[in-house]
C-alpha cells in the first residue's frame, strides 16, 4: 500500500477483536491490503467518491488483485443465505467487491478515475432501491 493508504488506516480500521489477518475469510488474504481503504465503505456513493479520490495506480492495483478472484469470491459468498446478513468477514469481502465495481469503471471503461468533464467531487444524486 502507499503511504497515503497507511495514514488513512487509523480512520477506517475496523475495531473489535479482529487482528488484521482475521478480517477476511480464509483464502482471500491477498485482498487484506485493500480492506482499510474499501472494506468499510457502506454505500454506492461512498465507493464512487473513493474512486474519484483515488489515483489510477491505486485503482489498478485494487482491480488487478481482486478482479481475478471474482469467481472464487462469489462461489464462497453464495454458500450463505441471501436473505440474511453476511457474517462480518464475508460482509467485508462483499463490500470489497462492490468497491471493485467502481474501480472497474475507472480501469476497464474510462481509463481515468473520474467521469470526464464532471466537476469533482460528484455526489449530487441519490439512488434508491424500490421493490
Amino acid at each position, binding site marked *: 500500500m502507499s503511504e497515503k493508504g497507511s495514514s488513512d488506516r487509523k480512520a477506517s480500521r475496523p475495531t473489535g477483536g479482529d487482528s488484521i489477518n482475521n478480517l477476511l475469510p480464509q483464502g482471500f488474504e491477498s485482498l487484506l491490503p485493500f480492506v482499510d481503504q474499501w472494506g468499510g465503505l457502506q454505500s454506492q456513493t461512498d465507493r464512487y467518491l473513493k474512486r474519484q479520490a483515488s489515483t489510477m495506480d491505486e485503482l489498478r492495483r485494487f482491480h488487478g488483485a481482486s478482479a481475478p478472484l471474482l469467481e472464487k469470491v462469489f462461489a464462497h459468498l453464495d454458500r450463505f443465505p441471501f436473505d440474511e446478513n453476511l457474517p462480518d468477514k464475508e460482509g467485508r469481502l462483499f463490500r470489497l467487491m462492490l468497491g471493485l*465495481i467502481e474501480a472497474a469503471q475507472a480501469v*476497464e471503461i474510462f481509463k481515468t478515475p473520474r467521469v470526464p468533464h464532471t466537476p469533482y467531487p460528484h455526489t449530487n444524486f441519490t439512488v434508491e432501491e424500490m421493490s
Partner: protein
Amino acid sequence: MAKSNQTSPKKFLKAKDFDLVRDRVPVENYTSQKIFEEERDKVFRPSWLYVGRESEVLDKGSYFTRDLPTLKTSIIVVRGDDQVIRAFHNSCSHRGVSVAESGCGKARTFRCPYHAWVYKNNGQLINVPCENDFPQIDKERHGLKSLSIASWNGFIFVNLDEKPKQSLDEFLGEFGVTYDGVPFDQYPYSFRVVLPIECNWKSMIDAFSEGYHLSFLHEKTLKDQTATAENPFIHYLDPRFMGLHQVATLERNYEWVPTEPVQVFVLNTMPASHTLDLSNNNKLASIMEHPGVNPSNVVNFSADNATVFPNLQIQFMVNGYLTHQFWPVAPDKMIMETRIYSATKPKTFREKFASAYIQSSARDVVTEDSSMSVLQQKGLTSGGNEYIYFGENELMLRKFADVLAEYID
C-alpha cells in the same frame, strides 16, 4: 456479419422526410426566465404528468408522495379503503402542513403533525381537535384537496387543471392506443436515480432523443455496444410520430463482446430476465411480443425510445423498461429522475453484484450526458450563440420543439 442488420434504408428517415423544417431554435428558449414561466404555465400546468405506477399502490391504504418540482406541487397518491386511487395535495386544510411524510407507506388515515387534524385515506376530514373553535370549517367540505388523476396501462398521471381540457386517453391519443397492453407489470423491480442538473430541462430530453452523440461522448461507455458498420452514427430508426408524442428504435451491436474481466463476469452473471441483458437477443420477454414494440423488426433491436409529452421518456427494452422524467425548476436548473425496471430481483450475492454494476454504469453514462448539458448551459448563457441547431438526423428534437411551440406561440 453473423447477424446483419436487416433494416432497410427507408427506415433511416430524416427530418425532410417528415417536413420537420425547424432546423434551429433561439438560444433564449434554453435560457430565458420568461420562456421557462411560459413552459410551466402553458405546458406543464394543463398537461397530464406522470407521477408513478399503480403497482406502487397495490393495497388498500398504500400511498406514495411525489414532488412536481416545476409546479412546486407536493402530492400524495393513495389507494383508499374503497380501492379507488386518488391524488391529493399534501397539505392540511388548517394551515397547510404536509400530512404525509415524504416517501411511501400504508395509512388508513393521515394525521397532520401540527394540530392533529385527521383525514381518511379517501381524503375526507374526520377529526379536528377542539372542533367548536372552528365554526368556519365544515368537515364535509374541507378534506384534502384532490387533483385530477387518471391511469394508462398502470402509469398514473395527474393534471393540475381541475377540469382538464382533454382526458388522459385523448391526451395520449395514438400513442396510448399503440402501446395499450404492454405488460409493464411483469417488470415490478426497480431502482430510482434522482439527479439535479444545472441545465435547461430540454437539453436532457434532447440528449436522449438522438443517437448522434453516442459515438463521441459515450465513446468509452456505449459506442462499441451500439454502433454498427451500417449505422456508425447511430441514427434512431423508424421514427413514429403520434400526436404530441414520438417513438423511435435504437439498435445494438451484438457483435460486441466484452473482454475486461469485471465486465465479462457481470455479463455471465446477469439472469436472462435482467433489464439490461447485453448477451441476449432472444425475444424472451413479453414486452417484445407487443406489436407496437419494434414494429419494423430490427433484428439487432436494443430499445424503442418513446417521448411522452411533455416530460416523460419510456424506453422499451428486450428484458424490461426504463423511465426518465425531466422536471424544469428554473431556466438553468432541472431535476431528472430515472427508474430502471426488471422482472426479477437478485437472488444471490453474485446477481446482487451484477445488478450493482449495472446501476453504477448507468449512473456514469447519465453523468456523461448531464455533464454535457451543464457545459451547454454555460456556453448558451455566455451569449455568443444566437441559435441551437438541429440536424436532419436530429428529427426527434425538431418534433419536440414543434410541439412545444404549439403550446407557447
